[in-house]
């Protein structure tokens, strides 16, 4: 009988503690899962990259030998160079095209909603679909080349996908087709956020329209450009499905990217050590972009 009062006295504290614990309790599984499956496996991949692992992981450490092999591997350099070409062109063209489309759409034209949807919809497709469609379009015997030739231009040639030197640019075409609409939407939102009075003031000062866009609007859009670059850079580095669907890495391995290189070596060719080393270098590449981004984000928050 004497227990009852003590229990009632404790109850508010208990529920108070529950209140305090509940968020942690709910978050705990997801924190544990991401600690284990993301950071744990990152660490494990690093450990594996220091071993001579072949078909299954082994713990025979060889220092940075796998990295040395990777550096000596010609295919890795093809993949890295491809990423540079693909990433740069993809980001730049998407930005320019997206900004241009957004400015044109911003001219208070009719049916803007419908046009916006037309440009934005490619983003709703998966890269696999984009890849397959463009594979057919670019195939010299089925697609654009065959079509133009059937119109009577017999000497028309557009066989980039067959040409090892040009095939990487077909990846750019397909990826730009898919992502530029999305960049356009970002820019359009940015444009709509600019105060009209600034533009009116510039017009009063007699500035031409291109000049207004270049000198007044673009500087206001800097944050948009920044986030667009971040998003596009991630898409570029992680590109895997597009390559698999569009070119399969070919002709030869002319369109290999680090992600496809990693997959092929780690999972198909029983070279887990080498694959892990290439995965670590890719992680390094992502971090090189991510850290400055996080740094500037955190700094601006502090100032804000």
């Amino acid at each position: 009988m004497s227990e009852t009062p003590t229990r009632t006295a404790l109850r508010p504290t208990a529920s108070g503690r529950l209140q305090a614990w509940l968020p942690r309790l709910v978050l705990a599984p997801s924190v544990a899962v991401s600690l284990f499956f993301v950071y744990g496996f990152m660490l494990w991949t690093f450990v594996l990259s220091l071993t001579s692992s072949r078909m299954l992981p082994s713990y025979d450490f060889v220092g940075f030998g796998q990295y040395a092999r990777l550096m000596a591997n010609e295919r890795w350099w093809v993949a890295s160079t491809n990423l540079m070409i693909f990433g740069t062109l993809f980001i730049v063209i998407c930005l320019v095209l997206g900004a241009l489309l957004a400015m044109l759409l911003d001219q208070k034209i009719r049916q803007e909603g419908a046009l916006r949807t037309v440009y934005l919809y490619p983003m709703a497709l998966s890269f696999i679909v984009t890849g397959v469609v463009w594979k057919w379009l670019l195939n010299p015997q089925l697609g654009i080349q065959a079509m133009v030739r059937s119109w009577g231009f017999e000497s028309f040639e557009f066989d980039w996908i067959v040409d090892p030197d040009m095939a990487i640019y077909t990846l750019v075409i397909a990826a730009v087709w898919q992502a530029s609409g999305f960049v356009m939407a970002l820019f359009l939102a940015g444009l709509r956020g600019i105060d009209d009075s600034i533009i009116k003031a510039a017009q009063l000062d007699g500035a031409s329209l291109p000049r207004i866009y270049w000198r007044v609007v673009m500087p206001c859009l800097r944050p948009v450009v920044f986030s667009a670059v971040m998003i596009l850079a991630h898409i570029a580095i992680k590109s895997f499905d597009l390559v698999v669907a569009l070119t399969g890495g070919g002709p030869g391995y002319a369109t290999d990217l680090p992600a496809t290189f990693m997959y092929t070596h780690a999972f198909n060719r029983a070279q887990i050590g080498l694959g892990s080393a290439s995965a670590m270098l890719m992680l390094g590449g992502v971090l090189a972009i991510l850290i400055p981004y996080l740094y500037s984000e955190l700094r601006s928050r502090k100032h804000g």
Partner: protein
Amino acid sequence: MLMKQLPTFKKSALALALAAGTAMAAGTSQASDVEVLHWWTSGGEARAANVLKELLEAEGYGWQDFAVAGGGGETAMTVLKSRAMSGNPPSAAQIKGPEIQEWGELGLLGDLNEVADAEGWNDLLPEIVADIMRYDGQYVAVPANVHRVNWLWANPDVLEAAGVDMPTTLDELFAAGEAIREAGFVPLAHGGQSWQDATVFESVVLGSQGTEFYQQALVELDPEALGGEQMVAALEDFKRLRELMDEGMPGRDWNIATAMVIEGVAGFQLMGDWAKGEFTAAGLTAGEDYLCAAAPGTEDAFTFNIDSLAMFRVTDDAEREAQHTLARLVLEPTFQEAFNLAKGSIPARPDLDMSEFDSCAQQSMADFQRTAEEDGLVPSMAHGMAVRADVQGAIFDVVTNYFNDADMPAEEAAQRLVSAAETASF
């Protein structure tokens, strides 16, 4: 109450998160079941696998099907690796070629000597096939079939329209190709995927330089052979074949290329005998509606690609017994015949009656027996029978890069083959 429960709850949540991965993999196989991981998933193959299942059940053992789709078995291998890593491999898995040795080195395979002795496998199987099935002198795997890779397929109507015969040498193939092109067809149907490039490459090496050289270069990886003049000559012949192909080939699947021959768009295709499945499915008869012959210059050679089931080490006696029964059944005539009729290949034991098979398979079997005696039987490099996956991959890279790069000289490709063989593994 609450306070007491909290730690336990947290612990179990963590345990749950950690266990999620392993729990999924924990199988439910009973002692007298065999769980078989395979990628015989296409229509005919699945029916053939079913024959094995029925045979096993007739002996009183259960068959647990573990089919992982995906043509080359790459997905299946990934699944197998994760099962093996979690310490719970299936009792039998479709593993082939030198990979059997790799699994053997990991100490995961159980031996089948008991069955092999009782059934006389040593006398039944050609020595070179038996060698692949053994690790460290012990039988660890059992062959299900033998595919021949060095085949040339042809559409007789196209050949007739161009006025050419089935070529028996590479020079004849080039000449016939020119005639076919002039008649308005694609001479050689091909798909520009690295394994298809390699399939054609090994047939050309064999046809241009012979079995002994093939063995030295692509099986033993002798640097002198890989970088020598003979290899340069073979590489040049290989590149010349490109002129016989159409420009729509990049990324094309092999069965689409076969369809080009079936539809009379193209004259020839160099492909293994699984292509026969496509001809058969189109309702064509071997020898009449389509022709088969050894790849030009290789009538005295036979590049084989053997599917086999390897048995994993098990501790339970009843399970081992079931495994042994499975191994025995795989080599028995009932399964060998049913399976190979469905798959387009030939039985792994040369003593079977071939009257049920079509003329191509009969020729294949005759050549198999003949070349086994005359040292013409060689493992297929392109299909993972000759060298390990890493070396094979590195050779693929060189071959496909050379084939697609108009500017790379054959000498450079040969040098790259040497370094590919050297640096592919630690």
